[in-house]
């Protein structure tokens, strides 16, 4: 099956000239793009340079921090991480060595400081309210997990080598090949991620530079904010509806579309294509469909059938229905695509054997097809939840702009103001509290990240040598 695919893959469009042609066009294009903005690239380098020059200062600030607070403040967080590392390493690794467990403790203890250090250990003081103490412990453990996952893989034999032979011999080349990717991720993903955490611990108002360290107060303030709590609930309601409908309908469609019939490819194209549209366009189309009066499609049909029309986007629940409809329509094709691929993965002989044993269509679906689809369902679950949490921004912005308002003049927020929408509404309005927006970003991140971490378990077993 692999070899079929690989042979199938070698069909260059311009014959043997394809690779050089693509290479030349690429080099010319990228060269033009970056050289024409070379000053901008230079400013990145000088920014990077000053950052590196500042590294000793940053290190000394960290050391000053640890020496200025009492060990009773930082030791507990290290201890929690180390304990967590020892226990989990001993449990998760089969036949762990003493060295492995000790490494688990060391890595767990160090890892705990990733997220606790930005908080300056402020949750580990005697006068911290209990809820913040729990959050501090959680931060320590979360940091440990991030550091421990590579260790566990390493203890199990490292990342799969995909073979035992055919390696190129070079000390520098692999690092050179990885450098652009690692540098880019470090600069534009890791650094801003840590900055987001730091941001959330300060109190600051948008254009002004003054800031004040407030520990986790932004988080507790959010917990007490009724608009935020509403937004939280709305996000989960919309997410739940989007995921259930988009996965359920997609599975049904894929079952039909994966049958061997004539024109199957035409059907697939017609079913899959909306995933290529942006959430903004999906929102725009549904805005036209759900608009007021009886000129929009939905109200026109409703009027023809029942003689009444509905103000979809002015009613809290109906506006949510419109958002869910636009989102489901937008992402459905993606799910159908992967479910069709998944259904082709279900072994035919297994189904035939089951039907010989007298299993009917329904039993075959529940006992064989659905379990075989589990990895696809899980992948799609993560993708769909991510879409419903983040990707939906464009649809909400175009379709409802977060409205209609809840409470008198929106005193309770907006009916479709999901977390991602509220976050950037709060972050970029003049005078808005940046720290609160940062805290919102961290919470939103943790929500989706914890789901993805669950996926790591399945992912990890796939990428490692299991003994």
């Amino acid at each position, binding site marked *: 099956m692999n070899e079929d695919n690989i042979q199938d893959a070698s069909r260059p469009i311009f014959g043997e000239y394809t690779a050089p042609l693509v290479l030349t066009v690429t080099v010319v294009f990228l060269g033009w793009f970056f050289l024409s903005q070379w000053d901008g*690239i230079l400013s990145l380098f000088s920014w990077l340079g000053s950052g590196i020059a500042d590294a000793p200062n940053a290190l000394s600030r960290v050391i000053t921090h640890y020496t200025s607070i009492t060990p009773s403040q930082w030791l507990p967080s290290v201890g929690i991480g180390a304990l967590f590392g020892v226990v989990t390493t001993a449990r998760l690794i089969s036949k762990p060595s003493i060295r492995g467990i000790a490494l688990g403790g060391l890595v767990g203890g160090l890892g705990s400081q990733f997220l606790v250090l930005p908080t300056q250990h402020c949750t580990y003081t005697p006068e911290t309210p209990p809820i913040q103490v729990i959050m501090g412990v959680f931060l320590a453990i979360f940091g440990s997990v991030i550091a421990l996952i590579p260790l566990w893989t390493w203890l199990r034999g490292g990342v799969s080598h995909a073979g035992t032979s055919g390696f190129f011999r070079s000390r520098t080349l692999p690092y050179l090949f990885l450098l652009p990717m690692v540098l880019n991720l470090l600069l534009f993903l890791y650094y801003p991620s840590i900055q987001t955490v730091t941001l959330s611990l300060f109190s600051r108002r948008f254009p002004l530079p003054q800031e004040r360290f407030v520990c986790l107060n932004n988080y507790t303030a959010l917990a007490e904010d009724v608009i935020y709590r509403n937004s939280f609930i709305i996000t989960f309601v919309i997410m739940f509806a989007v995921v259930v409908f988009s996965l359920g309908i997609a599975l049904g469609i894929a079952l039909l579309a994966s049958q061997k019939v004539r024109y199957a490819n035409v059907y697939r194209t017609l079913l899959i294509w909306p995933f290529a549209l942006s959430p903004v*366009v999906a929102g725009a189309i549904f805005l036209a469909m759900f608009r007021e009066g009886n000129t929009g499609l939905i109200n026109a049909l409703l009027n023809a059938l029942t003689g009444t029309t509905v103000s979809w986007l002015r009613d809290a629940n109906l506006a949510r229905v419109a958002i869910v409809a636009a989102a489901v329509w937008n992402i459905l094709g993606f799910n159908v695509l992967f479910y069709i691929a998944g259904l082709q993965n279900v072994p035919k002989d297994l189904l035939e054997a089951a039907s010989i044993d007298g299993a009917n269509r329904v039993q075959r679906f529940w006992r064989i097809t659905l379990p075989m689809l589990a990895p696809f369902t899980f992948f799609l679950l993560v993708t769909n939840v991510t879409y419903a949490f983040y990707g939906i921004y464009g649809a909400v912005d175009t379709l409802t702009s977060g409205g209609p308002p809840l409470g008198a003049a929106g005193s309770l927020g907006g009916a479709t103001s999901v977390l991602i929408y509220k976050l950037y509404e709060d972050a970029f309005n003049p005078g808005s509290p940046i720290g609160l927006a940062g805290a919102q970003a961290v919470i939103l991140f943790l929500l*989706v990240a914890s789901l993805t971490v669950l996926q790591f378990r399945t992912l990890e077993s796939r990428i490692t040598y299991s003994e």
Partner: protein
Amino acid sequence: MTPSVKKQKTRWDIHVPLIIICFVMCIPALYALQSATLTVAEGAFPPPKLFPPGNDLIPNIQDLFEKLNFGQYIVNTVIVSAVIVVGKTILAMLAGLAFVYFQFAGKTVLFFFVLLTLLMPTEIILLPLFNMMSQLGWGQTYPQLALTMPFLATATGAFLFRQHFSNIPRELAEAAQIDGATPLRFMFSVLIPMSWNVIVAHSLIQFIGAWNQYLWAVLIVNNNDSQVIQVGVRQAANFGLTPDYGVLMAAGIVASLPPLLLFILLQKQFMSGFAITKEK
């Protein structure tokens, strides 16, 4: 799941529901096409005009280019998307090459360094990224750098190519080494010719993502001449004094044509490119 027979009867029990589902899926698009042909007045006043098409499609599209700067938006978005797609593909292939064809100290740690970024969606870090861009002066002076540079690395792409390279027989790499080929030479003359489908699938997915980029562009680009197409669609929603759904739908259609055309043209390679990733 009937065993395949060469000469089959037309399965109407499957064709009919499929035709209905396809039609329902396409209704929003058909409605958008119909609405794009109407004038403001035709769209605003009853009775609803669901059929036949009006005569205003061309004037609506003209409005996009003459009053909404769509020509410039399209040029900008093409450049930005192309840089992102090409950059991501190159970085991802290099990473795949390093992970599959080299043994080196720190492989596991570097692998997880890349893997961990699957957890960090760009949507969450836009606030500090915005501050960083203002420090670099990119938001004002080099919006195209601000729209591309932060998105050149991709964990998904690295894993896609790593997975694909792992499926390629190791004998090829051994033969290349016996011939004294360098790793880059090996990549160009062996790996890339064997990876066109994966490259196409990866590029298409990344192109759709880049073309549909919206939130970051809204935040970082404050100059209408550097704006991207999705923001243009959003602007079309506020076009004119009364909502002009004809212009808005025309904007949606114009903004969706490039990804849709590419998807339809490259569909075959796209599907088989993903067929490889699905096997574990």
